[in-house]
């Protein structure tokens, strides 16, 4: 019983805590495609995910021509 409880606790803690203590830059899930030039495919996926493909911040500037956070242009 103790082993099962420990395993369950470990899994839950890993699922909840791991993203909080992650050392990786705060890039949201699903935008790792965005390294490199902004091709039409990248733009298409960007519209789907609605995060800047370069700095990963929410597309607060869209549909303007540049990300308001990092300045990346996609026109």
């Amino acid at each position: 019983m103790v082993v099962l409880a420990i395993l369950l606790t470990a899994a839950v803690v890993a699922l909840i805590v791991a993203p909080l203590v992650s050392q990786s830059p705060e890039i949201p899930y699903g935008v790792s495609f965005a390294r490199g030039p902004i091709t039409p495919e990248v733009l298409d996926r960007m519209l789907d995910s609605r995060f800047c493909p370069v700095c990963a911040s929410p597309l607060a500037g869209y549909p303007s021509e540049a990300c308001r956070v990092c300045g990346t242009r996609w026109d």
Partner: protein
Amino acid sequence: MTMVWVGRYALLVGLLSSSWAVFGGWAANRMRKLRWQESVRGGVMALTLCTTTAVFALEYLLMTGDYAVRAVYNHSDQALPMLYKLGALWGGDSGSVLFWGWILSLYAGWLAWRSWSRDRVLTPVVIPLVGSVSIFFLLLSNFVVNPFWPVGGHPANGVGLDPLLQNLVMTIHPPAMYTGLIGLTVPAAYTMAALWTRTPWAEWIGPVRRWTLFSWGCLSTALILGGMWAYMDLGWGGYWAWDPVENAALLPWLTATAFLHAVQLEQKRGVFRGWTASLSVGTFLLTLVATYITRSGVLKNSVHSFTGTGVGPYFVVLFWVSVAAFGWVLWSRRDMLKDRRALDSGLSKESLYLLINMTFAVIAGIVLVGTFFPVISKALVKQSVVLNVSFFNLSTAPLFVLVALVMGSAPAVRWHGTRVGVALRYLRAPIAAGAVTGCIFWLAGSRTAMDGAGAGAAGFALVSMLQEYRRGALSERRGRHRPAVVALVAAVGRNRRKFGGYLVHMAYAVVMLGVIASHTQSVSVVRTVHPGQTIAVAGYRLHYQGLNVVLHSGHQITEARLAVENGSQRWEATPGMSFFPGSRQPVAQISIHEGPLKDLYVVLEGTSGNGTILLDAMVNPLVTWIWAGMFVVAAGTLVALSAPVSRRKAGLSRDAHSGLTWQARNRHATEGRDPL
């Protein structure tokens, strides 16, 4: 006892995880902390893991027969076959609440796993809303009806599962019902999240439609399975009695059906937005009403007996909290509920969709008022008045006939309007088929105007749908020399959403024919029969040979041996009565000889010491059509669900605000700019 503690621990950790999913999710969204959002996503997965662990722990206890646990003691015993031990999980309130919470957590897990990457703005708002309902069920499971609580002492055996639930259909019906009802939480959460975040309608209504369609398909299947169980197990020869618990499940089905049609209007024309959003939310609220009716015992006139643990009042609290929250969001986002354009008048697809919506809403209203009439009358005149089957039949039958007529007419009518003459020419074959079907049913014994009209309308709708399939196949064959079957499959594959819907409409017509025939043309003979005597009913001859007593899976069955003749066909029927240990009432073992056109349904009503029996023999026409309709509904739903998702990318690009975060959209709205 090990698994008991694992289960209890998992429920507690699940409650903490869902709390994090709700409160952490809310904070992450407010402060735009992406890492927190990821953590919330992990919290939802943890919730799924915990509830799954708890369910497996309880199933383990049921399988191994740990009768010191209350849920195991109350709903299982040593003699219970393994399949029913599995189903004993949802045999009582405590297991049902756990099961409900588990399925909801699976939906939440699916949202976190699949929908997260597709929509990183809306999904993090949907998840806390689904999680808040999850918290409710986990609070109940932990502190009100914990299935792992001890019974006191160490009993060697349990009370056993209700004999009426020991049926294969009853093993499938509750999970299908739960999957359907619980699934309707997600569309409501999506609607609220989308309105709150001012997400343009084009971006969220598609996923909401798919979630609703899936739940609707499960609910439709479950409703028919419930009828099948009543027919096979209860021994009164019917399948639907307008019992409060049956009505409770029908109510969200009616509004979900209306919602699925309202979505079409929104997607094609951008109208009835307020109505569409209200239906989505209202359907969820009706699932709570359904659970309340089922679990509270507020309506004493139900033959169903699920009550006893007092969980009902908690559902009332959840209901009113949900009403307040949804009402507030709908009111504060009323600018989003304005229609994009006016509705075309006259004979148009729009007006038919509107009519079908209104019809389903009125049916839902009648069923709701009729179901709660004992409570309403008690409050008004201090006397509980129960409305009987005739009220429901008389008040809803014309509306169901109207639905079939509209359904059959719809393919002939275009968006923006069609001339009546054009529509009538298009519908010549369905109209002829409707007239013929009405006449056949009239001659077969359905002699009231409503029965004839109902059969005619169902025949009309069925042939209208078949005509659409034929037209689709012909269109595929034009210019290409394809076999008819290949062309048909290609046509369906090209427009799965449309043809899946038509398949569901066909199922409606088939079920309607089955209901009318079995309701109006059924023949019954109730007679005392001595050994060696023969009785006749509607062309069947039943020769009673004697009584047998057999033992089966720990219970005793007294069965009558009957040699049956129908023309050249001969077989043996053995209707009986089962006596389960610990149960005072015998359970009927019905003998049903099913056929494509009629069933011979024989019930042993009673026996005497000298071998004389009281026999009820019925011939029920077209009941198998109702069961066949269930498979067609399921097939149609799957075909419609398999249609590729329309992401509306073009609409997304055109939409000046679709890329905004929801905080930005709200800012724009408060600044007076058009959020859509």
